[in-house]
Structures are given as structure tokens and as C-alpha cells.
């Protein structure tokens, strides 16, 4: 017995008892009073029965679910198409939810994670973060009452060389010991860093992360006490952290922050991250207030440096959140994706609604009978909602499972490729919140897909009930559906265009030929550490580093070249296929022309892609010098000022003129120093292409002889390996580099032809995502359109019958039937094409994945869209033609009898 039944029993019992009491008070015997009360009441059983029926008519009950399940089987086409669409919508929704959670509502998976804070210093005039805040940190460390365990850390990438000579870069945090307290860092073995380790004279120690321990020390249980080489330093390992510890962000190794050895002058020294925990009883607001007080005092006391500085406090995990200054372009890109997908989800549910509406319309007479039997409008709506919910529930289960697979297998890799190392608190496993979100999405989807059509179909049901010819023209697709149809046609037009653009991009990247045998090359990206414990100012350190780089390079090169199988070693500022700088140039002829025309005449816009390379570059790459000469050793002198150009330069800048002897200089509008010195073109190199694979040309290549000290601490070594896989040389290269200079960091060692592998992966992933989206949108569009058109036309069967019977001309009848759908199609295609045009105009070119190429409105492009529009029209006509043919072929007498 249900609660409602029990309630009614109790209520009736109370009613009868009250009545009996009344009668007894009026003088009846209890027995007679009971009889009288029952007589007044009427049939108790019947009342209960009626009551129960009325309740079941009003409330959603399990029979609706059963009916919903039966409907899934009865209309398999709709189940598959609608179910697939809703699955996709929910899958996309969950993935968005998980991703958005990382940026919008980040939280630290640590005890008291919400009390861990970050302090940043902001220059309010420049509206930028002042990261050189060691001075401020030292001032606050003991002064702040509202923040405990205040600590600082400094990021560094250092080469870690373990005993067997294996040298690789690791992500190091030079961190205050309090960081381990803040982030609940209990070691797996040994100890964490202590304040004593921060003393200048303390022996050098390091704590390693769990993954590093496994990867580089093979999980050696005797790792404690081992001395390793870390850049120039030789710390002893004193602890191994437990799995998952990566504080401050995603660090692998920790060394003490020896502040006494660092430059602590105001607004000077290294960039640091400052963290702490809110003290007992303190809130973000009170702590901010205290910091602000300190900030104001510093602004007065250190007016020269701190006048415009303001300390700011934020939740620690917010550092990677939307409101941080972390790459607004990336955020914009993410936001665009979200908006795009969100639009898709709404559209999909509207679309499934369209299908369910057509299904409900085919059951109209059934629904009218139910109304006649006493079902209210709400009751019918709830029934249709339940049916949609059954479909949605099924879809949600599949969607969640797929989301889980997607998140586990691809999402983290996607983020890593885009953002590099991920913060330790980023977790993409399906959370209970995500499951709850799926439930909400399902209900939402069922509401859009079930309630909207139900409201539409039940409107005026009472009036239709009275009509003897139920259903004859009573239902029509109104304005909302027109919008849905137009929008879905538009999306169906837009999606394949995106896939097409991506495909063009992907094709260009895959087909990119830099003009030499990249597969024979090992590319080594190198950086040199700034000295770890240096009190020198940054500039001095940089100079020292560059000088050291130059000295190191010669030896490194000789030793690598001496390796068996090595055919040549050269270096360049950037690797072919990567990014080069585009610089505005001026030709000697231009200057002469400008002089003739007067100083006011605008100089022509000319941009060259500039590559700085070693003088041996062309020889090692086997690139022929087709005119003039190649570089020689003397060209590397800063006073030499010679350049070599490629065919692109000759074609696009010189218009085919002979490049040899041309004078070229760099101009920077607004630069007070004026243009650079003139460079003289001494040679023309054949074959090589300086293009960026993911950008459309034309590119005009301009090569300058470079020396390591001009590359700013980063350079790329290109090693040509004779026969076999160049990667086999990688261990030797690492070993040699570590031996020549331990502070030399090999950031990336890879095959040159795999330079863009990460980006290709992202584009491929994104392409498959959009391809799946497109297929779903297309499938759903076609099914939806067919359902709507077939429904509309079949609704007008009688009208067609009458027109045929009255001798109406076929063309006129067809026009009458097709007009509305054709207009809707036309509007949809127009809208879709407009979006594409707008996108190609707004983003003439871009270098991000999924971006559109320049001049997207090519002839082929327009042709593809026209073809696609024709296809859509074809399907639309198909949807209309089949039922119309049926109607036109039918005998008017028969047509008049159809509903």
C-alpha cells in the first residue's frame, strides 16, 4: 500500500470518527451513529478506488516508464537516432563540465585545500604581475598574522644526471620548507626539506618526487643518501615524496630556497611564487586587509619601487583558473569551443524534440482518447516527458561511459599538449558532481525534447476532442520549429566546413616539405641554466650564460661529430618546420625610391621570415647554393652583415630580380633607433622552405649567419645521422652534453620530422571530435527534417486529395506543399554560409588548431558549400517527395477518408 493510500485511509477513518462522534452527541447509540456516518459518506471502497485512479492519472508513474520503454522498441529508428543524439549531447556536456571545472571551480585535493592561498604582487599602473617579489616575501614572512607557513618557490628546469650518466631535464622547485607543511607533504621515505636546509652554508640536499624516483632511479629503495648532479650542483637525496605530490604546481624535485644567496633587492631578483595557509580564524578578506596595510606601508617606505605595487591574495588553485592572467587567448579559444558545443547541445535536444513531436503527433488520437478518459494536460505532458526521460536515461548511461573513456584516454593528453605540465590538482576522472551534472542534463534534455513538443501537441486538445474529425489539420509546426529547422540546417552546413578547414590545415602540416631530408636528423633543443646560486644581477648572469654557451658549443659539436654514423652537426635559432620570426624589411631600392618620392610617401610593406643559422647550415642540410656563395666562417662576425635568401624571397619580395648584391635592412616603425644596418645578400639557396606548416604562405626566407651568443640562451642542434633511426644517437648526445657542460639542458631530443607531432595529434583529435559532431548533426538533421517534412505533408494528404479531386494542377499543389520547407531550408543554408563567411572574414588566418586558413572563401570552398547546400535540398525534397507522391497517387475518395 502506498503512502497516498494510507493517508486516504487515515483521512476517511478520521472523517467517519468525527461523524460518529457528532451523531453520538446528538443522541444516537454508537452503533447507529456508525451506520449513519457510513450512509452519509457513501461507498468507502468506491471513493478510494476513484481517488487512486485520479492520483495515477495525475502523477508520473511506473507505467509511463514501461510505456516509454515500449516506445523505444516500437520506434527503433527514432530510438537509435534520438538516443545517439542525446548520448552525444550528454557526453559533450559532461566533458565540458569536467574541463570547465578545472578552470572555473578549481580545488586542491588536500586537507584544508580551500585555505591554501597565493600572494601575488600587482603593478596597478602596468596592470601586470610583478613576479620578482622575493623582497616582499622576506618582509612578510614573519610579519603576517593572518597567513601561516608563508613560503616561496622558484621554478627551474635543471639537468639531472644520475650515476649511470643518464642526463635529462627535470622540473625543479627551489622551495621554502614550509611548502611541505602547506601542501601536506609527508614523505614516502626519508624526510622533507627543513628550514635548516635553507641556510647558506647547509649541505646541498634534494627531495625527489614519486614518479621521478621510479623513472630515473628505478624505484631504488636505497636511493636516500645518493648524490646526484643537478645542473652545477651535487645535492644528496634526503627524501622521496608520496605519489601525487607535485606542490607548488607539478614539480618533480625539490631543493631548498636559499634566500640568503639570492638577490633580494626590491623589484629585483628571481620570479617567485608565494604561498601560505590562512591562519586560524582568518579569512581571505581579513588576510587581504592585512596584506593591503603592508602594501601601503611599502608604497611609502619604498616609494621608488613600490609606489604602484599592491599585494593580492587568492585561493591557491585559482592560479590556473579563468580569472588568472594565464593566456587570455587560450581562454578565448576554450570559451569559443564551449559556446560552440553548448549551441550544439541545445540544438540536439530541440531536434530530438522535433522527432518526439512527430511521434506524439502520430499518436494524437491515442492522446485525445486519454484526454477523454480524464487525463489532464499536465498528465499527458508528464507522460511524454517520461518517455523522453527513458530515452534520455539510456542515453545518459551510454554518454557517461563514453565520457569516462574519453577523459581517461585523451583529455589529459590533450591538456598536456596544450598546456605543458599539468598542475597536480587537475583531475579529470568522473566525479560525483559530473554524474549529478549528467542527471541534470538528462532531465534538461528530456524537458527540451519531451515537454516542449508535449505542450505543443496538447494545446487545444479539448477543442480537438470535440471535433468529429480529430487530427485533421489541427497540428502544425509553428514558429519555434521553424527556428529549430533553420538552425539545424545552418549547423549542418557549418560543421562539415570546420572539418574541411581542419583537414586543409592537417594536410598542409603533413605535406609540409622544408626541402631537405628531415628524417635523417636528430633535433636537440638546448638551454643553458642561469647559475643556480648567484647573487649576480640577471643581466650579468645572462651574459655569463651566453659566453659559456658559445664556449661549450664548439666542444659539443666536435664530440658529437666524431660519433660513428654522424654525417654533420649544425645549429640554428629555430628548427625548420617550427616558428620563425617575421620581420619587416626594406630593400636598398626602396630607400632610393623613397628618397625620390620624398619622406612622406609610405614605404611598401615587406615581410621576411628570418632564420639565424650556423654558417655550416646549408652544407649539413645538403641545400644547394644556386647563385652567389654560401656562408663562410668570417660571415659570423657581427660586422659582416651578409645574408642568403631563398626562392620565396626572390619571387615575393624581389619580383624575380637577381638577389645577389641586394641591400636589405630591418625596419621597426616607431623604433627610436631607426632601421638596422644594411645587409648584403650574397647567395640564393635552393630547395629549402622556411614556411610554417600550419600557416599559409607565401614565405620569403632570409637567412642570417648566427652565433650562439645571439640566440638568447636557447639553440637547436641539428645532427644528421647516416642511415638508421636518428633517435638511436640520443643517449650518446645526452651523455656528451652532460660531460661537456652539466648546466646545458637538453629540453627536447626528437626526430626532426616529428617536430610538430604534438600539434598534429591535437589537430587530429580535434578533427575527429568535430567529425563525430558533424556526423551526429548531419544524421540528426536529416532524420529531423525527414520527420518534419513527412509529417507536414502527410498532414495535408486530405488537402492534396481535395485539390486533386478538384482538378488542381500538380505543379501548383507541389508548390503549395514545398514552399514552407524550401524557405526554411534556404534560410538555414544562408545562415550557415553566413557563419562561415563571418568566420573566414574575422579570422583571416590563425596558427591555432581548428583555425581557418587565410582567404577561406576560395572557389573550391564555395563549390563545396554549394554542393553541400544541394545535398541538403535533395534530402529536403526526398522528405517531401515520398509522402507527396503517395498523396498525389492516391484516389481522392481514399485521401478524403485519411485522417
Amino acid at each position, binding site marked *: 500500500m502506498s503512502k497516498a493510500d494510507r493517508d486516504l485511509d487515515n*483521512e476517511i477513518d478520521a*472523517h467517519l470518527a*468525527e*461523524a460518529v462522534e457528532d451523531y453520538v452527541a446528538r443522541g444516537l447509540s454508537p452503533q447507529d451513529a456508525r451506520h449513519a456516518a457510513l450512509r452519509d*459518506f457513501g461507498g468507502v471502497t468506491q471513493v478510494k478506488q476513484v481517488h487512486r485512479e485520479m492520483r495515477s492519472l495525475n502523477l508520473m508513474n511506473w507505467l509511463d516508464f514501461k510505456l516509454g520503454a515500449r516506445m523505444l522498441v516500437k520506434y527503433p529508428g527514432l530510438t537509435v537516432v534520438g538516443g545517439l543524439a542525446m548520448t552525444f549531447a550528454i557526453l559533450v556536456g559532461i566533458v565540458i563540465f569536467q574541463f570547465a571545472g578545472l578552470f572555473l571551480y578549481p580545488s586542491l585535493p588536500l586537507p584544508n585545500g580551500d585555505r591554501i592561498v597565493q600572494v601575488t604582487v600587482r603593478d596597478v599602473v602596468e596592470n601586470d604581475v610583478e613576479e620578482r617579489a622575493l623582497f616582499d616575501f622576506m618582509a612578510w614572512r614573519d610579519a603576517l598574522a593572518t597567513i601561516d607557513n608563508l613560503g616561496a618557490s622558484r621554478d627551474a628546469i635543471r639537468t639531472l644526471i644520475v650515476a649511470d650518466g643518464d642526463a635529462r631535464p627535470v622540473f625543479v622547485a627551489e622551495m621554502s620548507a614550509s611548502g611541505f607543511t602547506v601542501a601536506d607533504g609527508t614523505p614516502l621515505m626519508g624526510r622533507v626539506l627543513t628550514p635548516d636546509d635553507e641556510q647558506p652554508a647547509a649541505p646541498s640536499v634534494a627531495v625527489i618526487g614519486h614518479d621521478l624516483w621510479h623513472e630515473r632511479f628505478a624505484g631504488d629503495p636505497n636511493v636516500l643518501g645518493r648524490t646526484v648532479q643537478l645542473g652545477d650542483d651535487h645535492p644528496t637525496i634526503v627524501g622521496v615524496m608520496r605519489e601525487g605530490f607535485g606542490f607548488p604546481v607539478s614539480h618533480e624535485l625539490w631543493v631548498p630556497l636559499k634566500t640568503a644567496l639570492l638577490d633580494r633587492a626590491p623589484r629585483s631578483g628571481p620570479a617567485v611564487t608565494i604561498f601560505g595557509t590562512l591562519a586560524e580564524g582568518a579569512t581571505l578578506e581579513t588576510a587581504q586587509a592585512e596584506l593591503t596595510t603592508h602594501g601601503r606601508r611599502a608604497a611609502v617606505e619604498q616609494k621608488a619601487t613600490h609606489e604602484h605595487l599592491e599585494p593580492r591574495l587568492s585561493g591557491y588553485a585559482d592560479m590556473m583558473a579563468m580569472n588568472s592572467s594565464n593566456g587570455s587567448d587560450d581562454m578565448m579559444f576554450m570559451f569559443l569551443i564551449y559556446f560552440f558545443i553548448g549551441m550544439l547541445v541545445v540544438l540536439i535536444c530541440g531536434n530530438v524534440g522535433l522527432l518526439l513531436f512527430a511521434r506524439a503527433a502520430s499518436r494524437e488520437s491515442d492522446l485525445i482518447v486519454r484526454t477523454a478518459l480524464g487525463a489532464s494536460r499536465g498528465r499527458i505532458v508528464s507522460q511524454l516527458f517520461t518517455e523522453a526521460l527513458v530515452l534520455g536515461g539510456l542515453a545518459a548511461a551510454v554518454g557517461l561511459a563514453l565520457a569516462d573513456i574519453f577523459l581517461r584516454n585523451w583529455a589529459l593528453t590533450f591538456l598536456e599538449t596544450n598546456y605543458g605540465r599539468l598542475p597536480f590538482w587537475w583531475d579529470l576522472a568522473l566525479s560525483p558532481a559530473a554524474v549529478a551534472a549528467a542527471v541534470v542534463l538528462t532531465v534538461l534534455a528530456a524537458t527540451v525534447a519531451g515537454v516542449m513538443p508535449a505542450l505543443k501537441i496538447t494545446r487545444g486538445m479539448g477543442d480537438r476532442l470535440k471535433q468529429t474529425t480529430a487530427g485533421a489539420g489541427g497540428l502544425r509546426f509553428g514558429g519555434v520549429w521553424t527556428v529549430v529547422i533553420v538552425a539545424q540546417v545552418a549547423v549542418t552546413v557549418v560543421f562539415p566546413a570546420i572539418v574541411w578547414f581542419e583537414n586543409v590545415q592537417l594536410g598542409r602540416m603533413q605535406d609540409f616539405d622544408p626541402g631537405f631530408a628531415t628524417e635523417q636528423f636528430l633535433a636537440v633543443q638546448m638551454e643553458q641554466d642561469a647559475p643556480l646560486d648567484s647573487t649576480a644581477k640577471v643581466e650579468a648572469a645572462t651574459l655569463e650564460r651566453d659566453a659559456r654557451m658559445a664556449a661549450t658549443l664548439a666542444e659539443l659539436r666536435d664530440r658529437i661529430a666524431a660519433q660513428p654514423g654522424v654525417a654533420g652537426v649544425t645549429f640554428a635559432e629555430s628548427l625548420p618546420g617550427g616558428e620563425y620570426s617575421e620581420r619587416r624589411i626594406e630593400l636598398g631600392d626602396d630607400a632610393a625610391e623613397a628618397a625620390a618620392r620624398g619622406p612622406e610617401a609610405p614605404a611598401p610593406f615587406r615581410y621576411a621570415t628570418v632564420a639565424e643559422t650556423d654558417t655550416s647550415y646549408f652544407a649539413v642540410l645538403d641545400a644547394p647554393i644556386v647563385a652567389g656563395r654560401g656562408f663562410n666562417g668570417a660571415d659570423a662576425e657581427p660586422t659582416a652583415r651578409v645574408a642568403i635568401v631563398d626562392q620565396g624571397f626572390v619571387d615575393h619580395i624581389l619580383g624575380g630580380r637577381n638577389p645577389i648584391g641586394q641591400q636589405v635592412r630591418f625596419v621597426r616603425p616607431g623604433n627610436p633607433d631607426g632601421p638596422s644596418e644594411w645587409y648584403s645578400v650574397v647567395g640564393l639557396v635552393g630547395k629549402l622552405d622556411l614556411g610554417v606548416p600550419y600557416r599559409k604562405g607565401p614565405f620569403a626566407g632570409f637567412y642570417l649567419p648566427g652565433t650562439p651568443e645571439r640566440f638568447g640562451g636557447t639553440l637547436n642542434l641539428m645532427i644528421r645521422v647516416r642511415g638508421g633511426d636518428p633517435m638511436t644517437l640520443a643517449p650518446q648526445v645526452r651523455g656528451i652534453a652532460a660531460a661537456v657542460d652539466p648546466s646545458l639542458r637538453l629540453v627536447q631530443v626528437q626526430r626532426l620530422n616529428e617536430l610538430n607531432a604534438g600539434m598534429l595529434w591535437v589537430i587530429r583529435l580535434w578533427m575527429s571530435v568535430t567529425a563525430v559532431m558533424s556526423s551526429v548533426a548531419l544524421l540528426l538533421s536529416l532524420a529531423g527534417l525527414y520527420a518534419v517534412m513527412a509529417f507536414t505533408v502527410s498532414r495535408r494528404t486530405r488537402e492534396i486529395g481535395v485539390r486533386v479531386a478538384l482538378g488542381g494542377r500538380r505543379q501548383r499543389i507541389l508548390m503549395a506543399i514545398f514552399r514552407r520547407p524550401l524557405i526554411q531550408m534556404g534560410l538555414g543554408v544562408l545562415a550557415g554560409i553566413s557563419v562561415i563567411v563571418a568566420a573566414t572574414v574575422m579570422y583571416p588566418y590563425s596558427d591555432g588548431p581548428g583555425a581557418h586558413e587565410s582567404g577561406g572563401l576560395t572557389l573550391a570552398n564555395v563549390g563545396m558549400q554549394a554542393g553541400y547546400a544541394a545535398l541538403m535540398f535533395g534530402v529536403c525534397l526526398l522528405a517531401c517527395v515520398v509522402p507527396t507522391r503517395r498523396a498525389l497517387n492516391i484516389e481522392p475518395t481514399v485521401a478524403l477518408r485519411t485522417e
Partner: protein
Amino acid sequence: MFSCRLSTYMVPDKNDVLYGSLGMLVLQTLAAIGPLHGYRLARRIEQISDNQLTLNQGTLYPALLKLQQKEWIAAKWGESETGRRVKIYSLTRSGRKQLESQESRWHRTTGIIDRFFKIPNEA
């Protein structure tokens, strides 16, 4: 005797004069007297009609359910004057609005019919 057939409530039809009669009586009684439980409500209706309307009291409950479903009345468990646990019904805001519109419609309808009865006999 006035009897209320359930089916009268099941198909709402604005043109049906009888529709909503019991519902209207319930709403008006609750509006005039305030929250009541089922038995007291039935008795009040009978008393107000000076016992000319005798309800088959059981029919009140489906009617009350219907009014609840339309959210014109609300119910909650409480205690009767005799200390019994009973469900007490009260008028909601939308019930009050509904009552107002039913009342004016009623007056209009009865007014029209009244005019017919007042046609002077020309014979």
C-alpha cells in the same frame, strides 16, 4: 438532493454550467470560514445550504484531490477540534483567484437565466 458525479470534474468545459459546482462550493466555504478538514467541510456545506444540499460526503474527497492537483487548495496534516489527526485544507492564492472568476461567471450565467424567468407572460 444534489448529487455530484465525478465525471463532471474530469472534462473541464468552460461552457458547462454544472462544472465546478462542488469545487466552487468548497472554495467558497474555505474562503469564508478558513482552513477546514474534510468532515467539517462537508458539514459546513450542508449547514450553509440549510441542509437543502446533502452531500454524499465521500464524493468530497475526489473533488478535494482535484482541487489540490489544480493547486487551488493546499492540504496539511493537523489536529481537529476533537484532537484527531486530520488533513486540513486551505485556499491557495490561485484558488482565491479562481474563485473570483468562477463567482463572476456564475453571477453572469444566473443573471442571464434570471432574465428569462422574468419575461412577462404575454398570454
